[in-house]
């Protein structure tokens, strides 16, 4: 499920972009230092395209009436290792945003977190630890299922936190959580089964002597990972704190700290903040819009409506007129 730019507020989007960018830079450095990096380049390219094609291939989920498809984060992590999988998945997300309007540029960090980071960071170690050697037998099936379900549920949690914290849509949290986590349980199971099938098939291909990526070693770089996780946990924390509007002050007061609110520095910061606030009336979702909020006055909203119409007419006229102008100029060029 791709987060869209439309559902994000800049602070949330930029925070996740920064965290994902940091992680991506670290992963790229690790990857470029791997001895078989050059060999991996074309395989990464085609596997990215494979994930794309596989996402288009829907199939019916047995037992239910719904359909599903491979998401590919865990498969990439198992076949290519965590660092390469992050690079491949971010390129897939970029192309999806640019060519298919799926996801977005501001939402790139969120999407990478929801779909790529959890499989590489948690899913892969879980799979490696639980399945021990090779992808055979019940044990490895369970390992793959657990890894995929954990990754899918964490991704769903990420979508919820990002949406709630951005405050663009106000879904009631408990119902939204139940729905998202519930839907992602079968999605995770299917993802695990398909991933396992593909991994086993890749091993069969490798045993047959054909080239196939094996089980790469390696892990994500430590410092960027910790920083990225800190951003994620910070967002989760901010969202919990927003449920209690003065949570920080409340806890500080409980500890016994006194917050002096009248000093020159305080006034200066307040003035600075008022001047630089990009979102002066930015409200967190839990505080919501109070029912007694004043109505927007009639004349301003009427002016707004007229303005919207005027802009629409202007845009339409520009859209119709500009190509003609251009064509005229080109015709003149040709004549000259």
């Amino acid at each position: 499920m791709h987060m869209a730019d439309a559902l994000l507020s800049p602070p949330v989007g930029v925070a996740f972009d920064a965290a994902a960018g940091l992680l991506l830079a670290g992963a790229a450095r690790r990857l470029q230092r791997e001895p078989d990096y050059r060999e991996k380049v074309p395989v990464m390219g085609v596997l990215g395209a494979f994930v794309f094609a596989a996402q288009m291939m829907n199939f019916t989920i047995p037992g239910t009436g719904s359909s599903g498809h491979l998401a590919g984060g865990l498969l990439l992590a198992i076949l290519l290792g965590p660092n390469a999988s992050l690079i491949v998945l971010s390129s897939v997300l970029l192309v999806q945003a640019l060519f298919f309007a799926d996801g977005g540029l501001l939402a790139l960090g969120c999407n990478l977190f929801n779909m790529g980071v959890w499989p590489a960071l948690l899913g892969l170690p879980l799979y490696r630890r639980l399945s021990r050697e090779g992808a055979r037998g019940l044990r490895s099936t369970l390992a793959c299922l657990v890894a995929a379900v954990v990754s899918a549920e964490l991704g769903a949690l990420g979508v919820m936190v990002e949406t709630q914290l951005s405050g663009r849509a106000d879904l009631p949290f408990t119902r939204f959580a139940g729905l998202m986590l519930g839907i992602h349980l079968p999605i995770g199971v299917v993802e695990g089964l398909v991933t396992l099938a593909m991994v086993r098939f890749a091993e069969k291909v490798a045993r047959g002597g054909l080239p196939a990526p094996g089980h790469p070693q390696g892990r994500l770089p430590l410092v960027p990972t910790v920083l990225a996780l800190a951003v994620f946990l910070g967002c989760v924390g901010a969202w919990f704190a927003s449920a209690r509007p003065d949570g920080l002050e409340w806890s500080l007061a409980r500890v016994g700290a006194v917050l002096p609110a009248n000093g020159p520095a305080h006034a200066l910061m307040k003035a600075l903040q008022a001047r630089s606030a990009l979102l002066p009336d930015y409200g967190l979702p839990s505080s919501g819009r109070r029912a007694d909020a004043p109505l927007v006055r009639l004349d301003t909203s009427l002016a707004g409506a007229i303005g919207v119409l005027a802009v629409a007419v202007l845009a339409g006229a520009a859209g119709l007129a500009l190509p003609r102008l251009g064509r005229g100029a080109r015709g003149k060029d040709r004549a000259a």
Partner: protein
Amino acid sequence: MSVLAARELDRLGYADGPLHRLDARAKLLVSAGFLVAVASFPRYEVAGLAPFALGPCALAAVGRVPLRPILRLVLAASPFAVLVGLANPFLDTAPAARVAGVTLSGGLLSFLSIVLRFGLCTSTLLLLVATTPLPRLARGLRALGAPAALSLQLTMLYRYLFLLLEEGERLAAARLLREPARRLPRFATAHRMLSVLLHRTFERGARVYRCMLVRGFEGELPSLRSEGLRRADALFLAAGLGLCLAGRLFPLTRWAGTLLARGS
């Protein structure tokens, strides 16, 4: 089918025109500024977002991009954002604005706002790729500081993307010919299809690697094109970011409305 529309966008990217000739970095930065400006509006904003529609319209007009593939792709991608926003009108029923005697609830406004934002953001990104070939965008990203591995991976992915999508479509067509009564394949069938696709993917990857070695691949794709910021690029960058800032800071819609209301 959205793949067809995406392929059309890709083809359009290689056309020539004033917008196509601009530096990829300038276009990327202006798009990013546009997205942040649109996203930074408060949740009930509808009127303030309207002037931003001029951005995609102007890009489409100057870049001669037909609207059909853009609209098709935006519509095809819309369900998630629209579904998430759809709850707003039911949950937030407090009246928030009155336009021409009709009271609009806050939820309706925020839902409209989400839909408008979605259209603006996605169409801008689609227009970016319809006026710039992806390899140039990848080089632009590299010049802006993205890791070399990501830029290279983006180019390689793009090279094989439509090939493998076609391969997948052929498999799907073959499956449909064998069991036309089934709209979607069963799990077992999909498993076989994906296995075949993965096998071909590996084979292709190995073949490509041999060819790249023969041509002297050293870890980075060389390019003959040198990108430099010319005056037109700088002008576009300044104008684009300036307009985004102006649209964010000033209530342009209300000004236009007051002006028209006073004039009439």
